[in-house]
């Protein structure tokens, strides 16, 4: 899907000015920038688990801001690198990590397009093996998500090397790879307050309980089967 193509992180084509590799991102000066992809469903499609208002704000305001700032940071990085300005390059790292991580959370839109039917096949079997049952997994993820202080994400990921499922939390917009280089995300739940505040106020556990109704297990199964055939 063109959508998936956007999600792969292209490396910077630096001063050597490599042309773009095709794909939907625009590029100038050999630099690939990103644009906000559309949701594969209506804003109101996930109600009543997540209200249309939250979806619209989250997508059009928050994610748009991440995309804009990421592009800005990339441009500044490109400038700094071509000028050899090492302190500036280092300073931009946190902006890139934050906003670029925000981009990686665009995956969450795909992850939440499902009807919430539980996983079957190899992923279902792996969950039973690692956690006991899907319910136990849900309890674990909800507990970790509720206990996370401040802003962050709770993930179900698969370790490519060890072929194991893991539940991890990351803070702010840190992507799952910061917890382990061989971790691939299967399910990600945004527990930043903006993801649920208008509907659930401060009752994060309620949001976590309800979000499972719209989790896209099909996507998770696909990714799992790709990583652990």
């Amino acid at each position: 899907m063109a959508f998936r193509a956007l999600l792969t992180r292209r490396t910077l084509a630096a001063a050597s000015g490599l042309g773009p590799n095709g794909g939907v991102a625009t590029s100038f000066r050999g630099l690939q920038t990103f644009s906000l992809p559309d949701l594969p469903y209506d804003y109101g499609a996930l109600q009543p688990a997540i209200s249309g208002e939250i979806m619209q704000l989250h997508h059009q305001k928050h994610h748009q801001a991440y995309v804009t700032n990421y592009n800005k940071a990339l441009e500044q990085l490109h400038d700094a690198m071509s000028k050899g300005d090492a302190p500036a390059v280092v300073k931009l790292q946190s902006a890139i990590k934050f906003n670029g991580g925000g981009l990686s959370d665009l995956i969450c839109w795909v992850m939440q397009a499902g009807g919430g039917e539980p996983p079957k096949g190899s992923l279902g079997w792996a969950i039973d093996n690692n956690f006991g049952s899907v319910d136990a997994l849900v309890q674990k993820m909800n507990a970790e998500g509720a206990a996370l202080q401040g802003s962050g994400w709770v993930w179900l990921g698969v370790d490519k090397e060890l072929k194991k499922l893991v539940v991890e939390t990351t803070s702010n917009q840190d992507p799952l790879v910061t917890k382990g280089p061989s971790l691939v995300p299967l399910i990600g739940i945004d527990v930043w307050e903006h993801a649920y505040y208008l509907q659930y106020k401060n009752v994060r556990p309620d949001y976590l309980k309800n979000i499972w109704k719209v989790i896209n297990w099909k996507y998770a199964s696909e990714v799992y089967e790709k990583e652990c055939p």
Partner: protein
Amino acid sequence: MGSFSLHSSCLAKPTLRWSNDCFQNLNSLKLPALQRRPNFHSRKASKVLAFYGLKSPPYKLDALEPYMSKRLLETHWGEHQRGYVEGLNKELEKNDILYGYTLDELVKVTYNNGNPLPEFNNAAQVWNHDFFWESMQPGGGGMPELGLLQQIEKDFGSFTNFKEKFIEAALSLFGSGWVWLVLKRREKRLEVVKTSNAVNPIVWDDIPLISLDVWEHAYYQDYKNDRGKYVNAFMNHLVSWHVVTARIIRAEAFVNLGEPKIPVA
């Protein structure tokens, strides 16, 4: 508790005349026996022993309109901060090493020099929010005066410069956290400091003067994702320079701001 229920026939009859007739009829009524109502207001013994309480802001919850709505304050103070207080009290129930501290001391002790204990989050957030409510007032904003203004101009160049720095810090803080104007004890100067989640400058022994909550729950209901508008509303209309002046006056008892820099020969 019981109650008398007046027999309906006393009231319904149109032939009744008020005054003596009525009383005579009342006396002849067969009143039902005293009824025992179930006691709806019984006090159950509370299982949580309260150690710290929820302190009210020094103004009514709708006093900060239109910059901070009553609804936001009700959720932020009434639910979030109350949640922190109750969470803290529940945690302290299990751990009697932490009995008997004042809230300030508890925050410093549970910070544990950078390795925070589980109680730190709740304790620090209670402290932070109390400080935050007191940093604001209805009809706030404007400029500081006299000695405070002089100190700001000395350490930031100008008041506008300070304001820009403060706003920039608030906008560049990733995730959840707080922005502070602190008086640094060792450097003996004012600085703008950002902290994340629940951390606050008293753990580094500095003296905070202003705090601004930039957790999303602090502004989401009124401003949605527009943190810039919220921060500007705070600086222009909410921050209480009276309180800040009082705080720096107290701080000068601990930090000698007037010490002249005597050059070493």
